[in-house]
């Protein structure tokens, strides 16, 4: 039996009819065509599918769409509020060369957002801990850590008005 769910994704309200077996990842990517969120391992190990649900990062591959009924979801497409100017986290990842193939980047940036919204001035080890649920197989962690420091500075100086 299909369920009708109401979700707000990046500020837009949607009513969608979903099978109980539909994951949040499938809802976002296939029903809403927001393909910035990736699907990696499908078992909650790699973090490529990370999105925010009610302000907390979750693995969208392990979340059922029926369980996000009534919730607020932010995906990588919603990180930059205007949709034109980049969010400081995105700017920092570019500035610091923290992107190689880019597959892990949306998940990394959502985890960075979760960290910086709780801890605006993290240490190296706090950043590594906060990103430990996200794997980069190009092994670019050092530049990613640099990028999060840089994003923290940008957000503190209010250089760009951030999303969340």
């Amino acid at each position, binding site marked *: *039996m299909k*369920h009708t769910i109401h979700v707000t994704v990046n500020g837009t309200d949607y009513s969608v009819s979903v*099978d*109980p*077996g539909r*994951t949040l990842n499938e809802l976002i990517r296939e029903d809403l065509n927001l393909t910035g969120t990736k699907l990696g391992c*499908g*078992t*909650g*190990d790699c*973090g490529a599918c*990370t999105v925010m649900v009610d302000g*907390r*990062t*979750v*693995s969208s*591959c*392990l*979340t*059922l769409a*029926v*369980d996000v009924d009534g919730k607020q979801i932010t995906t990588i497409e919603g990180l930059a509020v205007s949709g034109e100017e980049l969010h400081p986290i995105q700017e920092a990842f570019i500035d610091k060369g923290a992107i190689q193939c880019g597959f892990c980047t949306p998940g990394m940036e959502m*985890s960075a957002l*979760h960290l910086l919204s709780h801890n605006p001035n993290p240490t190296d080890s706090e950043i590594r801990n*906060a990103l*430990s*649920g996200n794997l980069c197989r190009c092994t670019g962690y050092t530049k990613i850590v640099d990028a999060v420091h840089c994003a923290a500075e940008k957000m503190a100086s209010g250089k760009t008005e951030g999303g969340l």
Partner: protein
Amino acid sequence: MSIGKFEHFKPRTLGDAVELLNKYGPGARVIAGGTDLMVKMRLRAVSPEVLVSLKNIPDLDTITVDPKQGLTIGATALLADVAAHPGIRKYFPAVAAAANDTANIQVRNMGTVVGNLCNASPSADNAPTLLVMGATVHIIGAKGKRELPLADFFKGPGLTALAPGEIVTAVSVPPPPPNTGVVYLSFSGRGKLDCSTVGVGALITLDAGTCKTVRVAIGACAPTPMRAPGAEKLLTGNAVDETLLRSASRKAAEETKPIDDLRASAAYRLKVVEVITYRVLTEACGIARQ
């Protein structure tokens, strides 16, 4: 790969949840955070016909902390919320630390402490601490409510003492006695993030430098999280010194029955469990002396 076809129910009361489980029988499974069940479904290790979600039952995520009455963690309380709870961190710090050592941030934002127990993995990070603290599992079923010591809950990998149609509603622990240290340490290949290769919890109550009460529980080294009674016996009633702690750690390792698997060989686990047990016992004694 899809996670399969099933019906999904979101009951608003525990009574309705129990009724649904009994109506649909063995094809029905309880789901809370789903971080273990969804993986098993994706791998086709289980293929439930019906999922009964506990997440819409009001107040089932309640955490109550009282230094005199103890700690109760509701079935849908998130690992992240247990790890960050100021009262748990103050009065039951090892419980918060074990929750924080479970998986990664995303999984802790979805998964629950009670779910970690119900999944009954031998490596369940929350089991050793709760075992040494003498936790009680609160259960509801068609015949009403019952309580079970956590020590009697684990029956094998993925197996618990739950009867068909029963739901764990909470886990509770009494406050530790004065002069007590409780510590949990785990070790795994990817920091503390993937399933633990070895996890050890210990509770030590000291009386003028002598071990009054000792409990040691070890994860990922037997078909269920296990106690180490031989090590406990070596320590109980004796004055703590390094030699005694080293002997007890060796004894604890001898009591385990580890296997070779993808995370470590049995031989490696035997070495690591001895080292981790020594660290845990030393740290617990240090806290007990404060």
